């Protein structure tokens, strides 16, 4: 009996790989299970090959899982392209289409894993019902349901819901395909008990991607203006908000480029609206000058960067954590900004709201560093709590402050009240040029020094009020793991696995990346003799940043690589084991 199952599906563009995966996740969520679905495809528009990896379990799921318990290969040619992403476990169950002509000896699976292969006439069963090719995925869902003991009614309900709009005939056809797959297993396959996936039903979960969660967070936080320019993998945020914003009296604009998108957001924010834009690495590069403007003119704005593999066009559909330096240091001059990193899908909802609050109160650009791995994956998570929604107001001048209004008042917190058009006697000129307290241009070196200090003082105020890190593992450990963003899941799970093996290790994942959370890092680092830094960046951007901000132990071990494939639990666990038990260093 299994309670945690990792399943991979690979096929050609028309095989319905992603659709089948969606149904499985949807059905699992309706049964109250946790799940995690990762899609993988090349950057073709249509066609090509695609795959998904789904992990389902009773307990919260932290990562995409390691090797597969079950593999479905619609054809071996396409599977071969995903071999490194969809590796099978020892004794994994493999379902393939008997229509695939590949001889057994050429099947691209490691013999050493001793896979248990089932050839199912998926194509043939589908064709007998539809007269043509499509529908293999529905047949396959029937096969899976019957072989593994998923409740058929949950998947059937998902099918009904999905195809409802297309009419009864379509619903019946798909249910028929599903049933035909199940019937084939009943008649021809000896079902083996160890395949059965057993679970308790629980409260239904939400099925949501990080990008959708982030857009919802923006709506919840009362974002009233959004401008964006489509870019993979941030487009879902832009698209979902295009649908939602008009409903809540918000303004949504598809800008002519990323520079315009951030410019519009700044204009709207200057006028008093909570404003946001979303992009990916190349778009953030274009926005750099505007980030400096927001910083110097002290205008609240939230910029979402759903990172992808870079530099330049890189690999747009794959994930990486290599925009860190750009987010931290991008733009000329000394330009304070805040960088936040959600670490999972649920975080995307919360961090979006927190980012809006920070931007509004501290009046600076807040960059949310999400990535393709959390942005585009689907997770089933407990329903977000609407009572947790935070809406923040920016400090506006009171009547007493308007008699001689100093927009850029030099004060202790660095946060000066911000008026906006429509407020009588609050008139001022917001300026990207250095200015005095009233906003009048100045080229006085002394004033520049004072204004720099004021702008950076806001970060100090913020750092004290928003310690924003997560700690895992043992308090008495001498080895610690530090990672950020989407690596959190695999790091946390690797730490839990290590503890199960009696290995003491501590973990730290900051959500507040910049400004540095000194106190929390200091407390975490103090007892450590060794620290393992985990990041998906070839040049170790995160480690360099940590070194420049904190006093790390002398013994620093780096687990880094380029993006494309997310870290596996196994990868991180092996490193921990090696470093704690004194194994051979690589």
């Amino acid at each position, binding site marked *: 009996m299994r309670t945690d199952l990792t399943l991979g599906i690979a096929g050609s563009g028309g095989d319905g790989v992603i659709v089948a995966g969606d149904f499985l996740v949807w059905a699992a969520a309706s049964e109250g299970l946790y799940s995690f679905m990762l899609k993988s495809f090349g950057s073709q528009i249509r066609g090509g090959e695609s795959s998904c990896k789904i992990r389902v379990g009773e307990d919260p799921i932290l990562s995409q899982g390691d090797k597969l318990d079950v593999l479905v290969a619609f054809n071996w040619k396409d599977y071969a392209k995903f071999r490194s992403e969809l590796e099978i476990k020892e004794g994994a169950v493999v379902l393939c289409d008997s229509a695939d002509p590949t001889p057994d000896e050429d099947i691209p699976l490691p013999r050493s894993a001793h896979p248990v292969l089932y050839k199912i006439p998926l194509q043939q069963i589908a064709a007998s019902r539809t007269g043509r090719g499509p529908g293999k995925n529905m047949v396959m869902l029937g096969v899976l349901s019957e072989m593994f003991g998923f409740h058929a009614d949950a998947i059937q309900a998902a099918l009904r819901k999905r195809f409802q709009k297309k009419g009864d005939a379509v619903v019946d056809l798909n249910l028929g395909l599903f049933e035909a797959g199940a019937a084939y297993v009943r008649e021809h396959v000896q079902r083996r008990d160890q395949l059965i996936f057993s679970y308790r039903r629980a409260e239904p979960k939400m099925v949501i991607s990080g990008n959708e969660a982030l857009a*919802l967070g923006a709506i919840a936080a009362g974002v009233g203006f959004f401008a964006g320019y489509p870019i993979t993998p941030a487009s879902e945020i832009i698209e979902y908000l295009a649908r939602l914003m008009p409903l809540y009296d918000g303004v949504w604009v598809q800008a*002519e480029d990323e520079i315009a998108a951030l410019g*519009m957001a700044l*204009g709207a924010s200057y006028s008093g609206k909570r404003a946001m834009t979303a992009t990916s690495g190349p778009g953030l590069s274009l926005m750099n000058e505007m980030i400096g403007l927001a910083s110097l003119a002290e205008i609240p704005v939230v910029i979402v960067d759903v990172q992808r593999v870079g530099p330049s066009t890189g690999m747009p559909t794959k994930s990486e954590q290599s925009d860190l330096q750009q987010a931290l240091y991008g733009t000329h001059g000394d330009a304070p900004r805040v960088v936040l990193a959600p670490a999972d899908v649920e975080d995307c909802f919360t961090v979006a709201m927190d980012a809006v609050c920070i931007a509004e109160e501290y009046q600076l650009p807040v960059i949310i560093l999400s990535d393709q791995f959390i942005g585009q994956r689907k997770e089933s998570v407990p329903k977000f709590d*609407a009572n947790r929604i935070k809406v923040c107001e920016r400090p506006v001048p009171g009547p007493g402050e308007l008699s001689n209004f100093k927009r850029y008042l030099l004060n202790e917190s660095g946060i000066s009240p911000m008026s*906006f*058009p*429509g407020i009588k006697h609050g*008139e001022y000129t917001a300026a990207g040029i250095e200015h005095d307290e009233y906003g009048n241009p100045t080229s006085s070196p002394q004033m520049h020094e004072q204004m720099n200090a004021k702008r950076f003082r806001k970060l100090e105020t913020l750092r004290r009020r928003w310690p924003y890190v997560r700690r895992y593992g043992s308090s008495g450990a001498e080895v610690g793991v530090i990672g950020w963003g989407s690596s959190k899941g695999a790091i946390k799970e690797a730490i839990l696995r290590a503890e199960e093996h009696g290995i003491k290790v501590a973990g730290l994942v900051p959500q507040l990346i910049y400004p540095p959370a000194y106190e929390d890092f200091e407390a975490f680092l103090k007892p450590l003799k060794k620290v393992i830094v985990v990041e998906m960046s070839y040049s170790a951007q995160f480690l360099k940043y940590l070194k420049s901000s904190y006093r790390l132990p002398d013994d620093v071990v780096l687990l880094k690589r380029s993006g494309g494939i997310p870290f596996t639990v196994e990868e991180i666990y092996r490193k921990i084991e090696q470093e704690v038990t004194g194994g051979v260093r690589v």
Partner: protein
Amino acid sequence: MSDGSVKQFKKEVKPVWCPGCGNYGVLSAVFQAFGRLDVPREDIVLVSGIGCSSRLPGYVNVYGFNSVHGRSLPIATGVKLAKPELTVVAVGGDGDALSIGGGHIPHIARRNVDITFLIMDNSIYALTKGQASPTTPFDDITTTSTYGTIDEPLDAVSLALAYGVSFVARGHSADVKHLASLIVEGIHHPGFALIHIISPCITWRGMKGYDEIKERTYYLDERHDPADKAQAVAVSLEKERLPLGIIYRERRPTYWERILGQREDAKSRGVPSIETLLNQFVP
């Protein structure tokens, strides 16, 4: 409400412009125009980019935004769409508007955002000390065209007409009264209004700009029908003598009107609560 006086718009801050700069004329026209509007000071926003001309908001007692080079139009768009009741005027020079920021004009034109854009054209990069601009005449010698410019100059009016700008006019800084009335007309026009202003730089171009105004411009009279696009295009192509006045004017829906229409339409099917939105993700 505005008391109609020009004085209330004048700030103590002294302009950094050189003596004789055309921009003083534009500033006076802006003061006069604002004085003629029935709009309180706090409801007017002046947005600019970077350059000599873009310093203008700092001298006017309204809300201002002196941003970065070439980006006044996207910023002004955000200002206007966030608070559509505001009077939003964007100002910039020829480099700001037509070179670095040139790519924003077609888009604000097709959106028809209700903003008035004053292009203060001195045919030179003045603040950076005399380099060729996108409107420097062919073969002119500047600090970046020692042997004469070999790029053809751009014509803001022709571009505006080609992009479908719904209000196109031209004035010059030596006729403040005429320019002020164009600015008032531009502000009253519901939609994007582009006003090309010949605003000479005597520091880098000597009296060339003023000579051009004297020798090469003429005022459009009642024979010109601004509603006639073909006629507007025809006069814009006259290179020997540049037409002054309202060249083209067309009433079509503004971006805000379209946003409102779409919003009403979207909301007519019901507005989900946050709770309902969250539930849409639960099977």
